[in-house]
């Protein structure tokens, strides 16, 4: 193994540490490496004497008193043995958490609730694409690391699946950004949710939150019942299905590729169809709403209505069709 590869792996396993501390450790090893080379060892020999990057990181993390961040719970297989055994890395929060911020490229992200009292993040260690998980104050930041394709191996899984376990009583903000992949949010209480995928799948259970912003440019989005103050759902050219959006004071903004949204109970609804089709079912009677409809080259089954009502609906349909129906509930 080349030293630079060894060092990269070490850095990866030290992901739970602050960057300044990580850099300090890497500088320490680089000095050790240079001294070994000066002492007459070859690169191969020098690296071999360091042992597996995982074991080195483990010793350092133990010495730092880091509980279990960057380590794993399974027994760790021999480094680079190619036995295909994917070991799991578990990151544990060591301070109260109020936000989780994920900036990823590919992969599936699952958010679940469990009976523990710390936020845990689990992901496989031995994948081509890797996560870095660090806690900065109350925020857990999860980012993807650059992929080095010179190390490409078919024995390694390309994309890691990540599972985030939240304590049941925790209410935290969630920010997820993915280029492609999937986001699964288990039903429960959240703070503000911002979830964006360029092209992927997003599925949520029954969620209670303050603000929810969802965008899925070209994928499939399925939302269970949502109780929120504001919902902004953007499915440019994707498909959005939602059942039961509630919050009598809520603002709902839907931008559709194809939207099928039933049982929306809100004060203000704004629906824009740029090039798709939207079918929206609003709670209450048609007479309860102020309607403001703009159609360009498309159609909408709703007519403009005079102001004076508590509730309002604004529809702008450019190239698609929009149908709005009402249920007396």
């Amino acid at each position, binding site marked *: 193994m080349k030293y630079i590869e060894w060092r990269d792996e070490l850095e990866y396993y030290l992901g739970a540490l602050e960057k300044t501390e990580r850099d300090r450790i890497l*500088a320490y090893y680089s000095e050790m490496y240079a001294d070994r080379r*000066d*002492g007459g060892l070859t690169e191969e020999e020098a690296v071999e004497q360091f042992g597996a990057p995982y074991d080195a990181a483990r*010793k350092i993390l133990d010495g730092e008193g880091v509980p279990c961040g960057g380590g794993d719970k399974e027994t760790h297989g021999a480094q680079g043995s190619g036995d295909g055994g994917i070991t799991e890395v578990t990151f544990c929060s060591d301070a109260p958490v109020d936000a989780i911020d994920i900036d990823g490229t590919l992969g599936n992200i699952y958010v679940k609730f469990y009976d523990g009292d710390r936020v845990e993040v689990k992901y496989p260690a031995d994948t081509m694409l890797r996560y870095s998980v660090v806690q900065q104050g109350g925020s857990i930041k999860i980012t993807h690391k650059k992929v080095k394709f010179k190390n490409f191996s078919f024995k390694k899984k390309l994309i890691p699946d990540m599972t985030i376990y939240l304590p049941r009583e925790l209410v935290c903000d969630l920010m997820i950004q993915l280029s492609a992949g999937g986001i699964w949010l288990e039903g429960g209480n959240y703070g503000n949710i911002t979830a964006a995928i360029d092209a992927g799948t997003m599925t949520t259970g029954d969620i209670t939150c303050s603000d929810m912003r969802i965008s899925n440019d070209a994928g499939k989005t399925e939302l269970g019942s949502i109780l929120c103050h504001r919902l902004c759902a953007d499915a440019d050219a994707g498909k959005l299905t939602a059942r039961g959006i509630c919050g009598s004071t809520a603002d709902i903004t839907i931008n559709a590729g194809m939207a099928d949204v039933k049982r929306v109970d809100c004060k203000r609804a704004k629906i824009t169809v740029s090039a798709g089709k939207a079918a929206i079912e609003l709670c209450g009677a048609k007479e309860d709403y102020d309607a403001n409809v703009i159609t360009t080259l498309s159609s909408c089954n709703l007519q403009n209505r005079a102001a004076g009502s508590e509730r309002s609906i604004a529809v702008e349909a450019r190239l698609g069709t929009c149908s709005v129906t009402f249920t007396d509930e």
Partner: protein
Amino acid sequence: MDIQIKKGVLDACVLYALSGGESYGYKIINDLKGIIEISESTLYPILKRLEAGGALETYSRQFNGRLRRYYSLTETGRRKLAEYRDDFEGVIAIYKKIFGEKR
């Protein structure tokens, strides 16, 4: 070796390795070779702990066109090494009483 005992022994060894003057990571490991096998991954937390406790001070200096981190004992470090010596003398006396006479 029990982790608590090991911690004390290792700290004492590193303090000892620096008692003859400033040194650096690779040299400390090599100087201790005849006494105890210690890897750089074990050494790092010890150095960090000793530095945090004020037992040693560190500085970087140019060597061969690169930076090398040097460590040297402070007054606290010297005192600590002396304390270890006294402590170990007590431990050895106990050890002899428990295990020594049975042999």
